């Protein structure tokens, strides 16, 4: 008998068996309490943290107190456009939180939702909001004070990709609006600023969250993003950047959709309880704590880090999202700015 060979074989088998045991452990009866209920939530990128660390645990304990049932959240977070595409392809999302209403309208068009059902929810389905701001390197070495400074030659801008990111669409409308709102020739002024900024884009990421990761890893001089992203890190003393509040910028409004066709009858009550919870004061306070601005203005006073914006605007000021998409994102950014840069 070759003892060494035997030893090698035995140790190999032990490792394989150990790995299999580890992998199967939670499914071996008696090793843990299996959660009785699950809820599938898809959300746009920056929402991952507040949901996983704040909202989910809070609702889990509330549901357990109310019903005595343990609840497990099955969740996925990516760019708003990506999430929307996944929902159109048929992922089993019961609740979705999208960065912009435009994505929710795409769900209606694809037949995922019966109609604009979210408009019957509180605040027409807007869960929370946050203004768009500019993040710059510590000390603001390039002297950036507003969107117009981003168009200066020699500035590197990190921008999420409008194809997959809701935040990128908000950012484009923010840039356009900042230039056009008080201009005698709005369309031309907006076009000029977009062209200037997009000439300076050095990196594009699939989501707002990924764009920030790129910025943190040293790309560019400025990042256009949600205030929430920056506030959250500021609160924890982890922000290695400075927030620049543009004089004039947009408040993004994040839309919640309930995907009725994916909700089994026995899930209905749970989903409705969760949705109602999201607009309750405790849940909205969690959003505020994580840097989102609540639709309930009085709650916003508890977060002292929120900055002041002189001239805020909303998508409503451009009609609605379909109109803004058509007239700003498509007609000006996609058909003119991108063409011009591509040449």
């Amino acid at each position, binding site marked *: 008998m070759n003892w060494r060979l035997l030893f*090698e074989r035995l140790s*190999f088998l032990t*490792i394989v068996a150990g*790995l*299999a045991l*580890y*992998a*199967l*452990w*939670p499914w071996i009866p008696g090793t843990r309490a299996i959660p009785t209920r699950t809820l*599938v939530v898809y959300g746009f*990128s920056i929402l*991952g*943290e507040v949901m996983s660390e704040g909202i989910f645990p809070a609702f889990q304990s509330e549901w357990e107190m109310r019903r005595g049932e343990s609840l*497990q*959240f*099955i*969740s*996925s*977070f*990516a760019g708003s456009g990506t999430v929307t595409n*996944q929902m159109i*392809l*048929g*992922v*089993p999302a019961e609740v979705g939180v999208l960065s912009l209403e435009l994505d929710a309208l795409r769900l209606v068009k694809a037949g995922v939702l019966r109609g604009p059902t979210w408009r019957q929810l509180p605040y027409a389905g807007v869960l929370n909001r946050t203004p768009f701001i500019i993040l710059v390197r510590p000390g603001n070495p390039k002297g950036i004070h507003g969107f117009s400074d981003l168009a200066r030659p020699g500035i590197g801008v990190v921008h999420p990709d409008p194809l997959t990111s809701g935040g990128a669409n908000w950012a484009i409308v923010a840039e356009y609006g900042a230039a056009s709102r008080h201009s005698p020739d709005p369309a031309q002024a907006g076009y000029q600023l977009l062209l200037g900024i997009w000439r300076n884009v050095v990196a594009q990421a*699939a*989501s707002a*969250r*990924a764009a*920030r*990761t790129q910025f*943190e890893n040293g790309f560019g001089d400025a990042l256009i993003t949600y205030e929430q992203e920056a506030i959250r890190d500021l609160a924890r003393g982890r922000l290695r950047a400075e927030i620049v509040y543009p004089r004039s910028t947009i408040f993004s409004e994040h839309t919640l959709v309930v995907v009725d066709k994916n909700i089994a009858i026995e899930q209905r009550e749970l989903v409705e309880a969760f949705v109602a919870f999201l607009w309750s004061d405790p849940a909205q306070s969690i959003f505020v704590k994580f840097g989102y601005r609540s639709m309930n203005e009085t709650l916003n006073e508890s977060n002292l880090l929120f900055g002041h914006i002189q001239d805020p605007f909303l998508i409503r000021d451009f009609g609605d999202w379909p109109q803004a998409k058509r007239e700003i994102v498509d007609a000006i950014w996609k058909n003119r700015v991108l063409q011009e840069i591509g040449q």
Partner: protein
Amino acid sequence: MKTRRRRTSRKTTGLLPISFLLLVLLPLLLMPLGAIYIFAARGGLGHFIRTFSQSDAQFALRFSLLIAFATSLVNGVLGTFAAYVLAKYRFPGREALSVVVNLPVAIPTVVVGTSLLLLWGPLGLLGQFLDPMGVQPMFAPFGVFLAHLFVTFPYMLGAVKPVLDELEATYEEAAYTIGASRWQAFRFVILPTLRGGLFSGTLLTFAHSLGEFGATVMVSGNLRLRTQTAPLYIFAQFEAGNIETANAVAAVLATLSFALFFVLLRFTQRRSQRVA
């Protein structure tokens, strides 16, 4: 005397190309791998424990292992069977079939994922009929399993078929002459010669399944605690800026792959020694 001189001369002339190779490989392969471990270790053991005390990290690793086990098992049997049929029988379209079964090596994995979605997804060719019945293979663990079967199919085949091709038909025929059934001939004559191929094929399948990303990201829906595999977890955490968390899982995955590779290497070395 002669042999020794040849050996030494080989050594000295080899110095330049060897150092050049190392110089190329260092930034290309060795340093990136080292970076994983350095970053993973930077947070200290505490960070490792924190990462693995999260249920989604644990789940991702477990789910990846389970899928890898299941894939190796099914493709082990299916791949061997395919190799047996292709090596043994002559039939029209055999050449075409051998190309087809090896295709997954050449197709980008993202395309594999897309094609599975277009077939089994709720809007897909077959999926649209299954969906009303409440059957949904995509965005579920089974969909991930299907994708891994597809992507890793050729590895088992590639390890087993060359052995079968070389196997003299006379042994098998001899078995038949003494009254062996087809199964007995397979079990006692063919299977023992295949052991090595089966072993390395299974390990390769396992390793590829463990690291599969492109097809999985398309078909899984990337759901934490349900369909998120370890590579998807790493990517999601990295994108979210949690680099240390991503690295902790990456280091475990890399270590597992190294271990697998080491076993495979030792095994093939031993075999070539035995043959020699």
